Structures are given as structure tokens and as C-alpha cells.
């Protein structure tokens, strides 16, 4: 761990001259970690640099860049955060040209915490740490293996505990809209807890995550009810990859497939009638 931290400090020092700030995590006063924008003017602040637990940095980056469109910024990003940045770029939420990515490869323990299939960066030019293989996702596998009735019971039980804090939506790096369909009374009933079954909130959110979820697990982490909602997103992501050969964050030029016309062979893979 300390090795990676030292290397990361060095990498940031190296990038400092070319940028107006480096977004990372620091262990602040009170010993609690939070996102922070490091500056070359204050290299001593790097003493407080931290790397774990991770914070939802892409969304912070979006806010900073929106206020300072011309600023050259660097971001310390793990595989998931890099994917988040790429997908935001595809949705015109970030200006890729003004960004420098400092890749931070996750350790096995970190990857296991996140049940991450791709705990490494692919686009970052500066990389800290050695990439490791992805780890299996036992929760998703467990749900995938359930019968229909078991799934229904499972989710009903999970969603029963939802307190509708909208935390999963708010923390998601891909939920950058100004208004949200989940707050639209036409689709999600207001003033009802526990949420009526089937949970419109979760189903709509899962649909909105089509070709968008970057598997950062921030939603699950922040959920006060510990709902493994990313299981839905992961299962759909698999389908999207299988049907439309799309993986979030993988190819910079590839647009989200559901927006485009059918390509050769795609229709056959959708399972729709002929």
C-alpha cells in the first residue's frame, strides 16, 4: 500500500507542472478521507494524500470542470473511475482534451471489496501500481442463478428496506442530469414507503444504467439498506456486451449502442421475433 502511495505522490508531482490541479483523495482533519484538489503551489499537502477507500471522483471532476471549462485538470483514477470519466466524456459532460488521467491499479483486496471484474485502467498514460486480474462477483452470480420466483422474492425483500434516500442516484458518476425521472411523480410514486412492488424506482434506474454503469459500486456502498442494486446493472451490462458488443469505458469512440441503428447481426442476438 505505502509503495503505491509513494509512487502516486511522485506521479502527481510529475504532473503538477502541466495542470491547474490534481483531483485525488486526502485524509483530512479528523482523519477522515474526502476528495481534494491538490495544487503544485502546495506540494506539502500531498502528505495527506490517501488512496483508500475510494471516493466518487468523476462526479467531483465534472463539477470542477463545469465551473472552469478551460482549466487543465488531472485526476487520480482507478479502473472504474476511468470508465466513469470516459462515459461522461461520451455524454458531453467532460472535456477529454483538458484532462490528464493518473491511473491507479487496484489491489486484490480492493478488487474483492468491489467485486470488480476490471480493477485496472486502460487509457491512462501515467499508471501507478501493477494491474491485476478481475475477481468474481459472487453476489451477481448468486442472483443470476436464482429461479424467477427466488429473484422476485429476493428483490422484494431487498427493496423493502429502501428508504428512498436517492443516494445511489446522487452518488452515481453517470447520473448527471439536472432533473431526474426518478423524481417524476408520473413514474415514481411519492410519499410511499416501503416502495410498492415492483419498485419503479429501481427498475427505471436500472434501465437508465443501460450501457452506462461503470461498476464502481459507489451506489451499493452508500446504500443505508445495503441493497446490492448493481447486480441489476451488471447483469444488463453483460447482455449489452453480448448483444451489441459494448463495454462501458472500453473504447473512446464507441457510442452507447441503444442510441444507434442496428448493426449487422445485432438483431439476431436480441432474441426478438422475425
Amino acid at each position, binding site marked *: 500500500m505505502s509503495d503505491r502511495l509513494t509512487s502516486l505522490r511522485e506521479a502527481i508531482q510529475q504532473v503538477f507542472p502541466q495542470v491547474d490541479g490534481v483531483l485525488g483523495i486526502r485524509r483530512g482533519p479528523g482523519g477522515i478521507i474526502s476528495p481534494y484538489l491538490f495544487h503544485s503551489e502546495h506540494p506539502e499537502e500531498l502528505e495527506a494524500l490517501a488512496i483508500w477507500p475510494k471516493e466518487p471522483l468523476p462526479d467531483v471532476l465534472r463539477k470542477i470542470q463545469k465551473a472552469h471549462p478551460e482549466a487543465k485538470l488531472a485526476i487520480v483514477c482507478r479502473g472504474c473511475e476511468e470508465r466513469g470519466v470516459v462515459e461522461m466524456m461520451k455524454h458531453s459532460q467532460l472535456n477529454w482534451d483538458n484532462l490528464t488521467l493518473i491511473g491507479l491499479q487496484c489491489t486484490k483486496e480492493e478488487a474483492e471489496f468491489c467485486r470488480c471484474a476490471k480493477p485496472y485502467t486502460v487509457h491512462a498514460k501515467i499508471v501507478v501500481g501493477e494491474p491485476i486480474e478481475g475477481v468474481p462477483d459472487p453476489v451477481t452470480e448468486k442472483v443470476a442463478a436464482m429461479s424467477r420466483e427466488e429473484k422476485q422474492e429476493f428483490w422484494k425483500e431487498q427493496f423493502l428496506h429502501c428508504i428512498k434516500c*436517492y443516494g445511489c442516484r446522487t452518488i452515481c458518476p453517470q447520473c448527471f442530469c439536472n432533473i431526474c425521472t426518478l423524481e417524476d411523480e408520473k413514474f415514481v410514486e411519492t410519499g410511499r414507503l416501503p416502495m410498492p412492488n415492483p419498485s419503479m424506482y429501481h427498475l427505471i434506474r436500472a434501465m437508465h444504467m443501460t450501457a452506462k454503469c461503470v461498476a464502481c459500486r459507489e451506489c451499493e456502498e452508500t446504500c443505508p439498506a445495503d441493497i446490492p442494486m448493481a447486480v441489476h446493472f451488471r447483469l444488463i451490462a453483460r447482455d449489452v456486451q453480448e448483444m451489441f458488443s459494448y463495454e462501458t469505458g472500453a473504447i473512446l469512440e464507441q457510442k452507447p449502442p441503444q442510441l444507434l441503428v442496428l448493426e449487422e447481426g445485432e438483431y439476431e442476438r436480441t432474441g426478438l421475433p422475425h
Partner: protein
Amino acid sequence: MIEYKSVLTTCPYCGTGCTLHLQVLDGTLVGTLPAKEHPISQGGLCIKGWNVHAFVNHKDRLRTPMIRKNGKLEEATWEEALGLVAEKLGEFKAKSGPDSIALLTSAKCTNEENYLLQKFGRAVIGTNNVDHCARL
């Protein structure tokens, strides 16, 4: 220089005491993030906590006391407002006795503030009619 930092604080909404980071960009509040490592809230927040930053700079937020004059709310100074409250409370107490007055306090206040309010009720006004929104 672009300034971005997170300010650690406690959620003001209820007595649970969830901890959160207010995100400050160039001196303006832009968002809330839960404090992942805090033992109380463990990185979670409720719908109110997630939105604490929203009211701070909201255009509808009251920034001065308001006094209704001729059926219309008008801005007033603290001197004026507190003077009016003291005057009226004294008036009611003199006319109808201390138990004609009740004090309601809020979960959005600190423990110390709540303590002070009940002390004020019992010692200054002389009533036990003290209650708190979290009890409801």
C-alpha cells in the same frame, strides 16, 4: 487557483448525527458527500442529508427575521424581532399566566441549544410546556 475541498460536518437535520462532507468549490457549496469512514453513518445518508447543501444558498431561504405588518411580511432587524417576541411573551404571561405559553424546539438545533430552550421555558417563563419535533 481553483479551490476545491470537502468540509467535514454533521448533518443538521436530526439527532442521528450522520456525518457528511460539504463540497466547496471556490467558496460555494456545490454538493454533499457522505463520510465513508465515519462510524455513525458509515458512508450513508438519507434523502435530507443528501440535500443539506441545497438550502444554504437557496433563493427562498430567509436571511433576516420577518415581521408581519398590516398583513404583510416585512424584513426586520434581529433587535426589532427579538424585542417584539420578548414584549409579546411578557404580555401573554402577564395576561394569561406562564402555562399559556408552549415552547417547541427542533432536531435541527444542537443539544446545547435544545437545553437552553427548555431552560428558558422553565426558568424564565415558568412553564413545563416544552416539546420537540423528534418526539412527534
